[in-house]
Structure formats: structure tokens, C-alpha cells
């Protein structure tokens, strides 16, 4: 039912709904029904100790009658597995979607193609339900690819705008590359083990005949790249940041928040494969997350595009959570890995709330530049408050996870602490820039018309509230016990204080900087953004000039040479035919003499010992 409900809604939306209001009502109805069904499943789980399992055959075929038994048949099953983690993750996704649909009903009135957009939301919900419940990696990839395609169509929603379409191609190409990596990883694993179902794969990682460490390393790396792309870990987050301004705000909010939840759950489930490879691989993955955790919030300080900034801040926070998850598997044999998942469950709605709140503010102020924003705390208290709540939550979301899973007195702890500081700065910067200081805008703008849009202001608030509750829960041992069904010892209060303090240091630093000179800070960001843009353009120009253009030029030239070559062959054929005809009409004796002389010359030149 968890799959059927959103699918039925999608089909109904696609086939019969035409007006904007009915489309949003249909999408909301379908999402709410799915939410209720999820709660029903959650209630059912409280009355049993094992997860719900259901298996449906997509197809199965025998391909060989001999050889290793696990390679004699191949099939894809919808192996659906609903446990506590599945249900909670699905609830988080549904709540993000409900809030976004509600916000879009009011703020998305000017967006084109309402029926199409809302149909995509329900299709996305269907795909995420499948991702979270699938234990067959092939079926999981199927849902993953559907979600990817629908995400692209949502981010490219603004048909007719050149900038939107141009940036949206990144939303197709880059995630597709990482999705291919995921597919290659699954295919690699299958080629070695003959199974793609997690339940049968994980127990045989080290016992299947013919397994090698190398094969596990390669598979792990491919899986990690695939998941990292959809987690939007830097530098694989271009598909979110490049479309942050041009895509509808609802699409950006849904894309980043929901994908981070789905991807972190998948990461959690495939981590045993990575752990089974070797320590170097795991350390490499943690290092990559570390780099992403620092780079993303740092880059959000470059430039004054608010939605891009919040996307980067959220990406950094997710990277920290991913690092905690992996460290939990490395150090503690997965005992504290679930803390990373719990952190992302809190980050996702906060990112969505922040996106929607800043989009409301940007829409009212008619600008996407933080330097031109201001005074939102007075004029748009609700959205500004939601933005503050979201910024605080994003900054604090990982504190609980870090307290559970990372020692502060280690290199990893130190680096992650820096990341937390940067994330806090990046998050609060948006609130301070938009909420305080004079509202600067071009002359024709009427500042008195900057006000909340009734009907939309509650949604970011509720999302931020929910994320705050999840942050608090992520610091409670019982919540982690509930999520993965294991027992976890509580972290020390001191550990929590240390990591919360790191976030507070970031908040304080940002506040002091803005208090001293808001204009200076934003001008510095703008300058840094310009330099970053120039640098990026230069790098892209180099890649375009020395890699893309020559490669495609070779292909184009080859495509031109081939017909030229064909024409030459054709002319040669024609000429030889004409020569043959002419020879047939020519007198025989001279022709024979000429042929004899030519053959003799050729023979003389070729055969050794005659002419030389």
C-alpha cells in the first residue's frame, strides 16, 4: 500500500487533473494518505518485534543449467522491508513534501505547469518509498533511477527560460554519472557474488567462493560515489547548487531534503560492504566526507545567493553526518552509525524549511541577493523566524551524532569541529543578512509591500519545529535504540556540550561579524563570489577548451570525414568501373602487352633476387 498509494495518485494526477488547485489538492491528498499508511505501518511495528517483509517477483529467468548455482538464475524482486528506520525516514520525507506542497499552493501560483509539477511530486514519493523499502539492490536502483529522472524533470520545470533549462542539464548529467556509478557497483558486486539482495549478500561477503578484497574495494568505491552524488556531497552537489536559483524553490527544497534522507538510509544499509573491504577504503571514504564537510559551508560563504548558500550549508551538515556514520562502522562496529542517520533525519526538514523561508523572503523583496535584503525580522517575522530556526537546527543537528560517534580529541574530531563551526556560520549568515539592516532595493521598488503572504508562512515554521524535535531526539539514546533496534549507551553530557559549543562558537562568530559590519561582510562575500565565479568559469573554460571541444571536435570531424571517404571510395569504384569498360572496348593486343609489362615490373620489385 505504501507504494500503491503514491503511484495511484500519480496516475490520477497524470490522467485527469488539469487545474492548479485540483493538482495541488490531489498531491496533498495522496501524500497525506501515504503518511497515514506509514503511521499505520509504524503502529503495526510496535506490536511485533520483526520488520514487515513482502516479496513480489518482477521477473525471474534461468540463464544456465550448470556452473555456480547462484549464477544459474537471474531475477529482480521487489523485496520490500519495512522496519523502524524505513518508517521514520519515510515519515520525514512525507512531512517535507506536505509542507512544500502547502507552501507551493500559495507561493507557487506563478509557476507554470501545476498539474505536471504536482504529479512529479507524487511520482517522487512513490520512488522514495520504493528506495527505502527495497532490499534488492537491482530493484532499489530501479526506484533510484525513477526518482532521479523525476527530480530532473522537477528541477527543469521552468520551461521557456533559457537559464533554467541550461542549468538543469547539470541536474540530469551529473547525478546520472553518479547513478551509473551506483549501477556499476551493484553490477560489480553481483558479478562476484551472484546475488543482489542484501539479506543474502551480506552474510557471504567473505565466504563466497572467489571473493577478493580487491573486488570488494572496487564495489565499495563505486557504491560510495553513487550514494555521495545523491547525498549532494561536495563536489558532487552541483546539481543542487546550480539549479538553486533557476528551479522552483519547492523543487529545490524537495530535491535536497528528500534525497539526503533516502541516500543516507541506503548508505547505512550498504556500509557493511564497504566495511568488509578494508580499512583503507573506509578511511578514504571518511576523508572524502571530511573534505566535503569543510568545503561546502566554506563555499557557501562565497557569494550572496541565499538558496545556493543554504544548499551548501545543508550539504556540509549531511557530510558531517555521513562521516559520523562511517566512523561508527569503522570504530564501533556500527554501534553508533545510526547516529549519523538520525542527524540527517533532522537536517533534511531544516534545509527544506530554510529554503522555503528564504524563498518567501526573496520573493517578497524581489531580489536573490543577500546584500539587497534586510529588515525581514520586522517586516516578515514568521519567515525570518523560520529561517532562524532552520539555521540553528542545521548548525546543531550533528551535535548529537558527533557526541555519540566521534571523539573530540582526535584529528577527525578536530576537523569535524571546524566543519560544525563553518556550518553554523553559513546557516546564521542567511538569517542575519535577510533579517537585519536596511532593506536596499532599486528605486522603483516599494518596500512597504514587503510582507508575509498569508497561507504560506506556517509551513516553514512547522518544518523547522519538526526538525528541532528531531535534533533533540537525535541526542537521546532511546531514539537511536528505536531506529535500529539495538541498545546504545548514552553519550556523556560533556561530549554533547562540546559539540553544541562548537556550533555556538560559529553562531557567535557570525553574529559578531554582522554586528560589526553587515555591509562589509556581505561585500566580502560578494567579492569572493565573483572570484569564485571567475575561477569556476576559468576552470570550466580550460576543460571545455582542452578536453570537451577537442573530443567532440574529433567526433564531428570523423563524422564529416566518413562521408568524404565514402564518396572517395564511391568515385574510385566508379572510376575503376569506367576503366574496366574502357579496357573491354580497347584492342586486345596492346592491352595484353601493357598488362604484361606492369605485372613484370611489380613482380620484379616485389620478388627478392630478381631486380635486387
Amino acid at each position, binding site marked *: 500500500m505504501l507504494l500503491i498509494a503514491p503511484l495511484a495518485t500519480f496516475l490520477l494526477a497524470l490522467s485527469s487533473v488539469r487545474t492548479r488547485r485540483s493538482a495541488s489538492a490531489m498531491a496533498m491528498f495522496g501524500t497525506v494518505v501515504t503518511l497515514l499508511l506509514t503511521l499505520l505501518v509504524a503502529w503495526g511495528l510496535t506490536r511485533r518485534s520483526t520488520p514487515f517483509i513482502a516479496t513480489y*517477483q*518482477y*521477473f*525471474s*529467468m*534461468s*540463464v*544456465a*543449467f*550448470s*556452473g*555456480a548455482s547462484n*549464477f544459474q538464475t*537471474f531475477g529482480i524482486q521487489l523485496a520490500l522491508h519495512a522496519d523502524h528506520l524505513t518508517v521514520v525516514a519515510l515519515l520525514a520525507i512525507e512531512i517535507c513534501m506536505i509542507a512544500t506542497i502547502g507552501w507551493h499552493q500559495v507561493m507557487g501560483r506563478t509557476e507554470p505547469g501545476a498539474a505536471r509539477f504536482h504529479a512529479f511530486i507524487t511520482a517522487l514519493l512513490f520512488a522514495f518509498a520504493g528506495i527505502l523499502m527495497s532490499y534488492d539492490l*537491482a530493484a532499489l*536502483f*530501479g*526506484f533510484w*533511477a*525513477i526518482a532521479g*529522472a523525476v527530480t530532473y524533470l522537477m528541477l*527543469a520545470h521552468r*520551461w*521557456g*527560460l*533559457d537559464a*533554467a*533549462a*541550461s542549468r*538543469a*542539464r547539470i541536474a*540530469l*548529467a551529473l547525478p*546520472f*554519472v553518479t547513478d*551509473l556509478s551506483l*549501477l*556499476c557497483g*551493484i*553490477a*560489480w558486486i*553481483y*558479478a562476484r557474488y551472484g546475488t*543482489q539482495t542484501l539479506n543474502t549478500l551480506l552474510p557471504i561477503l*567473505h*565466504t563466497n*567462493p*572467489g571473493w577478493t578484497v580487491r573486488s570488494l574495494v572496487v564495489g565499495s568505491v563505486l557504491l560510495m560515489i553513487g550514494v555521495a552524488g545523491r547525498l549532494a556531497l561536495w563536489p558532487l552537489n552541483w546539481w543542487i547548487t546550480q539549479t538553486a536559483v533557476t528551479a522552483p524553490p519547492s523543487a529545490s527544497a524537495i530535491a535536497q531534503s528528500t534525497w539526503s534522507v533516502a541516500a543516507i538510509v541506503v548508505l547505512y544499509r550498504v556500509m557493511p560492504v564497504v566495511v568488509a573491504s578494508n580499512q583503507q577504503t573506509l578511511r578514504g571514504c571518511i576523508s572524502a566526507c571530511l573534505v566535503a564537510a569543510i568545503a561546502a559551508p566554506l563555499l557557501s560563504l562565497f557569494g550572496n545567493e541565499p538558496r545556493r548558500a543554504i544548499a551548501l550549508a545543508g550539504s556540509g551538515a549531511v557530510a558531517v553526518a555521513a562521516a559520523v556514520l562511517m566512523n561508527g562502522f569503522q570504530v564501533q562496529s556500527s554501534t553508533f552509525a545510526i547516529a549519523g542517520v538520525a542527524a540527517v533525519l533532522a537536517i533534511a526538514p531544516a534545509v527544506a524549511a530554510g529554503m522555503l523561508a528564504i524563498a518567501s523572503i526573496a520573493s517578497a523583496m524581489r531580489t536573490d541577493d543577500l546584500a539587497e535584503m534586510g529588515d525581514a525580522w520586522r517586516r516578515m517575522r514568521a519567515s525570518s523566524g523560520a529561517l532562524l530556526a532552520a539555521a540553528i537546527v542545521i548548525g546543531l543537528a550533528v551535535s548529537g551524532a558527533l557526541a555519540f560517534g566521534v571523539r573530540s580529541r582526535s584529528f577527525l574530531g578536530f576537523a569535524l569541529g571546524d566543519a560544525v563551526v563553518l556550518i553554523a556560520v553559513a546557516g546564521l549568515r542567511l538569517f542575519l543578512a535577510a533579517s537585519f539592516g536596511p532593506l536596499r532595493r532599486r528605486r522603483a521598488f516599494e518596500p512597504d509591500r514587503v510582507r508575509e503572504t498569508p497561507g504560506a508562512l506556517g509551513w516553514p515554521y512547522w518544518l523547522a519545529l519538526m526538525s528541532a524535535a528531531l535534533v533533540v531526539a537525535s541526542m537521546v539514546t532511546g531514539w537511536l535504540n528505536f531506529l535500529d533496534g539495538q541498545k546504545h549507551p548514552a553519550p556523556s553530557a560533556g561530549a554533547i556540550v562540546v559539540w553544541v559549543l562548537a556550533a555556538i562558537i560559529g553562531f557567535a562568530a557570525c553574529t559578531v561579524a554582522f554586528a560589526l559590519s553587515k555591509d562589509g561582510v556581505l561585500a566580502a562575500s560578494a567579492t569572493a563570489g565573483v572570484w569564485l565565479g571567475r575561477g569556476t568559469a576559468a576552470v570550466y573554460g580550460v576543460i571545455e577548451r582542452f578536453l570537451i571541444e577537442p573530443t*567532440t*571536435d*574529433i*567526433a564531428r570531424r*570523423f*563524422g564529416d570525414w*566518413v*562521408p568524404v571517404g*565514402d*564518396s572517395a*571510395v*564511391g568515385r574510385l569504384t566508379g572510376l575503376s568501373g569506367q576503366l574496366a569498360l574502357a579496357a573491354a572496348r580497347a584492342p586486345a593486343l596492346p592491352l595484353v602487352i601493357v598488362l604484361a609489362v606492369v605485372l613484370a615490373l611489380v613482380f620484379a620489385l616485389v620478388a627478392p633476387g630478381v631486380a635486387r
Partner: protein
Amino acid sequence: MILLTFVAATPSPTPTASPGAGIFSSPILLSLLIWVPVLMAVAIASMPNPRGRYDTLMKQIAFFTTLGLVFILFVAYNQFENFLPTMQYEERLDWLPAIGVKYHLGIDGPGLVMLVLSGLIGVASVLASLGVRERVRAYFCLLLLAEASVNGAIVSRDMFVLILFWGASTIPLALLILGWGGPRRSAAAWRLLGYWGFGTGVLAIGVFALYAATGAQGFDIETLLKPGLSPRIQLAVSIVIIIAAATRLPLFPLHGWIRDVLAEAPPGVVVVVAGAASRLGAFLILRTVIAAEPAAGHLLSPLLAVLAALTVGYAALAALRTVDIRHAGAYLAMVPGGITILGFAAVSPLGIAGSVLSLFTGGLSAALVAGVCATLSDRAQSRSLLVLSGLAPRMPNLAWLFTIAALALLGIPILASFPAELMTFFGAFKNQPIGAFAVAGGLALTAISLAVLLRRVLFGAPNPEAPGVSDSSLSETWYLGLLAGGLLWVGLFPGGPKIPGTEVPLFDPGLINQMTAGISDIASPYVAPTPAPAPAP
């Protein structure tokens, strides 16, 4: 007599009763698929048609002929016994006994897949051709002959007869391009003749060499490609056959015809060429190299992997740089062929199974993408990507179909290309991981070129200086919808729809189930030995 034979009820035993089993069987079922279109072509050709008075009737005849073939195929498909590894619906007649040529027809699982593809393509090509106004009689006569020759090449079990049908498919298609094509139709037709003629010649050389090597006993596939041929002979003949197949599929670097042919041919011919006629290349490799020459298959698998990777990569890059939408569609139509060949390069049972399915899905997706580009350029009255822009709001049907074509090329789930590509990749990573990675890289490039194409043509800002556009007509929507529908149907129900709660199939036993007949036999030489148990940790 023929009619009595046609309707004789011959129950065929099946372990699981499938709907349609036992309705009728016919000893000339496969011949019907070849000669009925020929007879109808002759009928159309001999009908008087003063001043085009009966043009509509001729179109109807062609349409109902192809529809009738699909009906026959549907019954054959349902009655097909997928647990039998041998040929089914066999027909044997001595034709030239002096040189050992027999009129021998038969199909197994992969052959059935190709026939189903050919049937769908036949109907789609007629629907796509309903807009033809000039010399209608000649057009549909040639179209039916082309379909007949493709069917003949699929079901032939005698290599001499196969060569005849293989070569025969070239001529009506070349004439169709020459007579009804675009501005550069002459170059396109000659190019088709040149490449396919070269391929036919090379194939003939290979077959005759085999004939001589086997003691001139006959041209039957079981005789020519019997086990026991020395690896050297297998290798030489396989190389020759791969060259012949590469001219047809096509594979880089023997792909020179595809750009001009698919860009200049009318949409109906585009569908036949991209959808069915070109798949014969891969089918030939399956029948001869993979099925019958395993030693050569193993030795040449790296070559096939290289060809697959080059084809997919080149096609994607060329599509990225072109400024002609029909050229882009032509290049993109090469991508499924590369994936099919990757599955053969895998030389593993799963890879081969994936390739067989991708014969069907690749044919439909290649026809769909090339057909959409052709129809879109007709409707938008321009082929230039510098002019075409932001068409989605004004051409919603074509926009959706173009998007489905793009998703089909990329192997997105719910479309049939997903299980095909999944099986191909899963099978390929065992024996050809580098080739599989390279093809995956090529697919990523394909995604980029599709993103650029969709952005430019569908989702960009409208061009105010572009000519007026109109959405696809009913017949255009139908033919493209049929191709997309085939992909969706098999994608949703690869094992066939079943009565809920049971394993009893409804009207469709499932293409994946039907295609397994014979695959295990084909793949048996490629089964990897069971590895030694892992040492205890």
C-alpha cells in the same frame, strides 16, 4: 488445402497452460510471415490506381497486412513453448539439393523476440507512412517487401537463404530513400547500398568459406556451424561475420551510412531501418559467433567490447556536436546497438540474455528516437538546432514522446530497456569490466548529449524567428506511441501480467519468459566453472 492446414487444431503440450495454447498451429506459419507481405505487395503493385484514386485503399491494405501479421505473431508468441531448447515452427524443403541449399525456417527464443520486434515495427512503419501522398502504390509495395525480407532473414536456418534475404532487404529500403527521401536522398541511398552491399558481400565470403571448410555438405546452420571446427577457422569466419554485422547494426567505424540514411529517409523507412533491419546485425552475431563458435567468441570478446565502447562513446559525442536534429537522432540510434554488443562481449549467460532482450528494446528505442526527431523536424519545419527551441509547450505530445525516447536510451526503469541494460551490465562486469566501464562512460556522455538536446529543443526559450510549429498528427502520435507503448509494456510486465494472487499468465506469457528458450543452450559454453570454496576466515 493451405486453409485447412492453417486452421488445423494441434494442441501443443505445455507444462503451464498459457492462454492461446492449442488454438491453432500451422506448418507454414513462418512462411506466412515472409510471403504474405510479398503477396500483398504484388497485389498492391498490380492494382489500378488512376490519379491516386485508391491511395487510401492501398494504405489500408498495407496496414491490415501488417496488423494481420502481428495477430499471427501474437498467437505464435503465446503458443511458443519456452521450455524447449530446439527450434520451433520449423519448415524444411529441399531447394537446391545439388549444393545443399534448403528452404529451412525455424525460430527459438531470440528469434521470437526479433519477430515480435519486426511485427511491431511493421505496424509502426505503416502508421508513420500514412502521410505519404506521392506514388503511394510504389511506396507501400516496397515497404512490405522490406518487411518480408527482414522477417525472412530472422527465421532462416539456411545460411544461403539468409544471405539472400539479408541482401534483399537492402534494395527496397534504398529505393524508398531514393524515391521519397529528403534533399540528400541520393547520397543516403547510395551510402546504404554501399555499406550494406559490402556487408552482404563479406557475409557471403564468410559463409562460403565455412561451406568449403565443412566439406561442402550444405548451408544449413547446424551443418555449417557444427561443433568441432578448429579455433583458427572459427576465428577467421567470426571476424568476417563481425565485419558484416558491423555494417548493419552499425558499429563504429562502419557506421558511415546511418547519419545520412536516418536523416534523409521518410519516417516510415526510418522506423524500419533503425528498428528492425539494423538489429539483424546483432542477431547475426548471436546466431553465428556466439551460439556456434564459442572459441572465437571468447577470443573476440575484447574486440566486441572495444567496438561497443567506441560505438556508444562516438555516438554520444557526435550527437553532442551536431546542429541538425535528425543527425542527432541518427547518432543516438547507435547507442542501443553498442549495449547489445557489450552483452555479447560479456560471454556470460546473463550478458547474452541481456543482449537478446536488448535486441527488442534497442530496436524500439532506436526507432523511437530517430522517429521522434524525424517527426519533430517535419512538424517544426526545420532541422537546425539553432532554430528549434522551446518547443515543449507548443508540441506537448512530441515533447513527452521525445522524453520517453531519451529515458529509454538511458535505461530508466518502467521501460523495457531497464532490465535489458541491467542484465547486460550485470553479465558484462564479470568478464569485461573495462569494456563495461567504458560503455557506462559512454552512457554518461549520452545522458549529457540528451540533456543538451532536450534543453535546446524542448525546454529552452522559444525562438520567435522559428517557423510555425504544430504538434504531431494522429497517425504520428500512434506510431510513436506504439513504439513507446511496447517499451512501457515490457518494462512494466517483463514476465507478463498475471492473474492477481496466482502464477497464471493473462494474455501475455512474458517476453522474458519466451525468450529463454534456447538461451541456455547458446550460453552453455560460456558458463564459468564453479570456483573453489573460499578458505575459512
